[in-house]
Each structure stands twice: as C-alpha cells, then as structure tokens.
C-alpha cells in the first residue's frame, strides 16, 4: 500500500504555478495584507519603510505608462517567482534554499545562517532579510498563524506559495481539486487577477491561462524559468 501511494505520488507530483492577470489588477494591495496576515510577517511600521527594510512577500510595483498628461498607472504584483532555474539556490552554502519536487523554491529558516547571498543573486528582489527580531503587540500574539514558523532575526525569507496550505490540502494523498487550494493572496484578490494551480494538470485554469496569448514572464532573458506567468494586453495605442 505504501509503495503504491509513493509511486502514484511520483507520477502525479503537482507543479504549482501562478498566473497574474495585470489587466485585472487594480493595485488594491489586498493580496499584500492577506499575505502579511497569513504568513506571520512582521508588522511593517513606518520606520521599516524609512530604513528600506520593510518585509513584504508580495508587493505591488507601480509604474507609469505614457507621457504626461496621458499617463496611466500600472501595477505589477511581484512575489518570489519560484524559478525552476533559480539563481538563489546554488549560491546558498548550507542548502537553506533549494528546489523541491513540486517545483517550489523552498526556504528553510532553521537552516539559514544569513549570508544573504541568495538575496544578492535574486534579480526580482523577492528575498528579504530579517534585520530585527520581529515583535508583535501583545494583543496580536494570538493572531499568529500556528502553521507558519515565526522567523527569527538573521534569516532570509520570501514567498512560499503558502506552502502550509499546500501541505494541509495534500495531506490525505488524493489529488487536489483545481481551485480548491489557494494561497492567501489569490484567495483575497477581489478581481481574481491571481490564479493558482497545478500546472501538471492539463485541465487546470492555471495551465490554460499561462498559455494565453497575452502571457509573458519577468526577466526571461536571464533564463531563470519562473513559475509565475503574467498576462498583459500589449497596448497598441501606446
């Protein structure tokens, strides 16, 4: 019985991917807040932004298109791209970050010694460092998610695709229904701009969308092979 589940698991190993439809993104930051709440991310006070040390596993990069006065604000939610050929992985001296079978770029906090080399080598700036010991106000302590490690100071952290939810959903061993498993950011997106799923499932929404004609991936010329695909209509009018 054990061998059977193992072999079937190998055959059906999911490949978690995300598609972000930039044409739907309104830049509302709901995903950012949801991520903060789900993943025990320290509270970014104003000083953290002044020090340039705010921790956000997903952040909304805003940029402008067009010339004044005909200018449009555009938003690019940026999170760890879970690259299949990740530049951050081979440079870690202690295997604190590596690629697992599900195509996830995993960060092991208790293994991390904090050389920060991975952060240097990540072209997406998706990796963040804990400069201070995180502190929560007393009345927020019980709000911490028990399924997620509270990181100490001195380690790197980044988006995990809410691996605690993946673990919970796949615990039984049976296949996860498409759409049933959602990271916090996907779950909270009011415009459903973010889609998450198993790209090894040919019928999954994420598989369909990532081959949409509007698709592109960020900094593809670096050959990192990211697992996050963006969709954007190319504005022909400029």
């Amino acid at each position, binding site marked *: 019985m*054990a*061998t059977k589940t*193992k072999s079937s698991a190998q055959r059906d190993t999911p490949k978690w991917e995300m598609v972000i439809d930039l044409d739907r993104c309104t830049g509302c930051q709901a995903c950012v807040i949801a991520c903060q709440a789900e993943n025990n991310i320290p509270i970014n006070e104003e000083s953290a932004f002044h020090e340039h040390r705010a921790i956000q596993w997903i952040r909304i990069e805003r940029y402008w298109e067009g010339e004044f006065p005909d200018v449009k604000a555009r938003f690019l939610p940026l999170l760890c791209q879970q690259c299949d050929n990740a530049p951050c992985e081979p440079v870690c001296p202690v*295997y604190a970050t*590596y690629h*697992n*079978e599900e195509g*996830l770029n*995993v960060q*092991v*906090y*208790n*293994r991390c010694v904090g050389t920060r080399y991975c952060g240097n080598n990540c072209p997406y700036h998706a990796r963040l460092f804990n400069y201070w010991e995180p502190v929560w106000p007393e009345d927020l302590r019980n709000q911490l998610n*028990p*399924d*997620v*490690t*509270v990181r100490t100071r001195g380690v790197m952290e980044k988006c*995990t695709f809410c*691996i*605690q939810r993946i*673990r919970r959903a796949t*615990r039984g061993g049976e296949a996860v229904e498409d759409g049933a498993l959602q990271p916090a950011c996907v779950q909270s997106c009011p415009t459903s701009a973010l889609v998450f799923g198993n790209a090894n499932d040919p019928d999954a929404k994420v598989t369909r969308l990532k081959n949409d004609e509007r698709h592109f991936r960020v900094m593809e010329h670096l050959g990192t092979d990211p697992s996050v695909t963006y969709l954007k209509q190319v504005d022909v009018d400029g």
Partner: protein
Amino acid sequence: MNSRVVKIAIPVVGASVLLVVAFVGWFVISAWWSNPPPVLGFGEGPEQPIAFPHTVHVSDAGLDCQFCHRTVSTDEAATIPAVAQCLFCHGFDKIDGRLSTSETAQEELAKLIADLGEPQQPINWNRVYRLPDHVQFVHAPHIQQGISCSTCHGEIGEMQVVKQVRNLKMRDCVDCHRDNGAPTDCSTCHY
C-alpha cells in the same frame, strides 16, 4: 617558588582541568547526539499539577490512546482531553469510588472538581514533548500510516510520570522517514 610544590601542583591542576574539560565535552557531545545524559535532572519527566497515572488508565484499564487523545488521527496535535472528558468516567458531582479506590487517587481527583467552580481555567499541564517553532509536526499522517504511539512516546502504560523517551532530534525524524520511505524534503516539516 618551591620547586617541589610546582612539581606536584602542575600535574594536579592539569589533571583537574582535563577532567572538567572532558566532562563538559562528553556532556555536550552526547547531548548533541541524543538526549543529555541523565545527570543534573535531565531525563526525568516534569511534575504535573495532577498526578495523572497512565499506568492505571493504559495498563490496568486498557484504554486506547485515542480514547482520550481524540484528534490524533485527524489533526496536527493529539490534544489533552478536556476536564469534562475525565469527569465523564469519574463522575461529575462527586468522585466515583468504583474507579478511584486509593486515597491518593481521591486526592488528585479532588483537584479536578475543585477547579470546576472557579473561572474556567484550563489545567496547566506541563509539556513533556517540545518541538521548536520551526518544526511543523503533524500527528495525523503518522497515525494513518499505522505507526503506533509507542514508537515515539514509549511504553506510556508503564510510566507513572510521563517522560520523554526519544530524543526527537532532527536526525531521529529523518532516519525514520528514510527507513519508511516517507518524504525527506526539508519543506515536509519546515515551513
């Protein structure tokens, strides 16, 4: 200085320094590999607010672990049963004499009832098995795979006071996972 004193003092001091270093070294290394050696109080179970005897419940009464630790097969934690569950057997208003014959048992059970009248504070059991925050241990899959509780917790039925029997170092987990074909991906437990 008198050279005879020096001649005696140097070996004595040297030997005692060596002894201390050797002891500390042995302690650190053995603690690293497994549990600390049972000196200085290591290796004993903590005293609990109510001297609950697993011997009576498991060996004598023959209760199954899951009779009390009900969520162990479905959830992360095995959970300590609520007071109500104790009283289900032992009687709600007074201590049922059939199940608690000895005097000590009566005394300990009295504490259960004594707490009932107060504002509902849970009993402050002392934790015996403690994993660091960065380890996410889930009981359910282990039970579902048919691993018996005693694999990690030892013969609880023979323990008057529950104590830790397995070191639960990471190597311990990883070895067992390896032997049983369970995943050894770091992110199985660390996330």
